[in-house]
C-alpha cells in the first residue's frame, strides 16, 4: 500500500506543471536604457548621434564637460559640440563646452543644474541652484532666470516666442520632477534640496519686487490706454456731432 502511494507520488511529480514568466530577450545588448542612431554612436563618438531613452527608464550621458540625464521616452541629438533637446524631460547637470538648444530656444546655459521639459504646446525651463541664461529664437536679448524659478515658453507670438513671467517653483513640484532624473545618491539629493531652500527664499523676495514693478508698469500702460481711448471717443463724438444733431432734429428727440 505504502509502496504504491510512493509510486503514485513519484508519478505526480512528473505531471506537475511549473509556469515561469518568460524573460524578455535583451533587444539592445549594449544599452538596455536607450536606443542610439547610428548604433553605438555614443561609444564610437560619431559626429551626429541621436539618443532616445526607453519608456520608464532614464539615460545618463556623460562626456567631457557634459552630463545630461534623459527622462522616460526622451530624445536628444548630439552634433559635435551642439546638443539639441528634442523631446521629453531633461536634467542638465553640466554643460561646459557644449551649447544647448531646443526648438524654441537659441541657447540655454547654466553653471549649475537645470531641468527642461518639452510638452505638446509649451516648454518649461526650471533653474535649480544657479542662474540660467536663455535666448528664445527671434529674440536678440538673453533672459536670465533666478535660481528656484521656472519659465514657460509658449507658441510663436507677434514678437517672437511668448514667454510668461518667471514663476517661483514650489518644492513639491521640483522634488517630483528633479528626483525622477537625479542620478546621484539620496544624500546628495537632500544636500541639493537644502541649497535649493535657501535659494528659494532669496529668489522669492527678488521676484516679489519684480512682480511689483511689472504690476506698476501694467497699471501705467492701462491708464495710458484708457486716456487714449477716452480721447479718441471724444474726437469721434465731436466729429459726428453734425450727424447726431441732424438725426435728433429730424426725429424730434430733443
Amino acid at each position, binding site marked *: 500500500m505504502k509502496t504504491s502511494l510512493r509510486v503514485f507520488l513519484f508519478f505526480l511529480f512528473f505531471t506537475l506543471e511549473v509556469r515561469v514568466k518568460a524573460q524578455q530577450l535583451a533587444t539592445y545588448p549594449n544599452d538596455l536604457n536607450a536606443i542610439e542612431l547610428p548604433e553605438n554612436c555614443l561609444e564610437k563618438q560619431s559626429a551626429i548621434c541621436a539618443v*532616445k531613452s526607453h519608456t520608464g527608464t532614464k539615460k545618463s550621458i556623460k562626456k567631457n564637460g557634459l552630463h545630461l540625464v534623459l527622462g522616460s521616452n526622451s530624445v536628444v541629438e548630439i552634433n559635435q559640440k551642439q546638443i539639441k533637446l528634442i523631446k521629453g524631460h531633461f536634467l542638465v547637470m553640466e554643460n561646459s563646452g557644449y551649447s544647448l538648444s531646443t526648438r524654441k530656444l537659441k541657447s540655454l546655459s547654466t553653471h549649475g543644474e537645470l531641468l527642461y521639459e518639452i510638452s505638446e504646446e509649451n516648454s518649461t525651463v526650471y533653474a535649480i541652484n544657479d542662474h540660467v541664461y536663455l535666448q528664445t529664437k527671434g529674440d536678440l536679448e538673453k533672459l536670465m532666470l533666478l535660481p528656484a524659478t521656472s519659465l514657460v515658453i509658449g507658441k510663436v507670438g507677434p514678437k517672437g516666442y*511668448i514667454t510668461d513671467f518667471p514663476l517661483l517653483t514650489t518644492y513639491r513640484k521640483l522634488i517630483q520632477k528633479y528626483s525622477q532624473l537625479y542620478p546621484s545618491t539620496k544624500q546628495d539629493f537632500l544636500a541639493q534640496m537644502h541649497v535649493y531652500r535657501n535659494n528659494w527664499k532669496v529668489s522669492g523676495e527678488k521676484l516679489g519686487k519684480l512682480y511689483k514693478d511689472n504690476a506698476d508698469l501694467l497699471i501705467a500702460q492701462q491708464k495710458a490706454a484708457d486716456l487714449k481711448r477716452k480721447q479718441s471717443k471724444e474726437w469721434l463724438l465731436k466729429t459726428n456731432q453734425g450727424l447726431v444733431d441732424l438725426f435728433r432734429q429730424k426725429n424730434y*428727440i430733443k
Partner: protein
Amino acid sequence: MVSTTRHCMTRGRHQSVSVPLNRCQAYFADALRKKRPIKPKNIKIFQQLADKPYMKSQVFIVFCLTIAVGTFQAFKVFETHFSGLNELKREKSILQAHIEHKELQYELASYKLLEMQNDVALAMNLIPKKDIKSDQKYPLRRLASVTQTSLSPGYLMQLAKRHFLKGKKLFRAKRYDEANIEFTKVIKEYSYSVHVTESYFLLIEGLYQSHRYEELIGHVDKMVSLYPESELTGYSMLRLGKIFEYQDRQEEASGLYKTIMQSFKEHDVVRQARISLRAIQI
C-alpha cells in the same frame, strides 16, 4: 514517524515476524517493569535491526523532486532546441530594434519639420488666424497652429462672448426680454468687446419685437452717437423709420430715410432706405 518505519524482528515459535519498533521498545519496557529477564537473542536482534541502514521518507521526497526538476529542465531544453523558439525570439528582438530605430528617425524628422514651421512663423511675424479660413490657405493654417496671440486666455473677452452667444440663442428662441438682459450686460460690462455693436443692434431688434419703442429710440440714439459709421447703425435707423411709419408719422420717417441715404455708403442700407422712402411716397 521513526517508529512507524523502523522495524525490529522478533522470533515466533516457528518463523520470524516483523513487528514495529515501538513494539520492540514496549517489549523491553514491559520486561524491565515486570523484572522479567530479557532474552539475549532478542537484544541482539534488536541491535542488528536498529543499526541496519534504511531510506528515510524525506530522502525519498528529495529524490523524487530532483528527478522531477531534472526531467522538467531536460524537457524544456529539448523543447526549445527543437521548436525554434529561440530563433523566433531573436528575430523578434531584431525587428523590434528596427522599428524603434525607425521611430527615432521619424521623431527626428518631425522635430525638423516643426522647427521649420516655427522658424517660418517667426520670420512672417504673427499670422492672424481669422484671415486664413479658406481652404486654399491650408498650409498657412497649419503654420498658424504654432502661433498664439497671448499666453493669457483673455477671460473678459471670453465672458463677453459667452453673454453675447447666450443672448443670441435667446433671441433666436424669441425670448426677447431675456435676450435683452444679456445684450445689455455685454454693452455695459464689456464695452471694449467686439460684440458691442452687434449687441446694440440685436437689443434694438428685441425691443422692437417687444414693442418697447421709447427705449428703442434711446438705444438708436446711442448707436448713432457711438458707432455712426457702422452698417448696423443704418439698419437700426431703418427700424426706427418703420416705427414712425406704423405710428403714421410719415414725414418723420421719410426724413429719416433721407438721412440714412445721405449718411451711409453701404449699398444694402441705402437701397433699403430708398425702397422704404418710395413706399411712403406712393
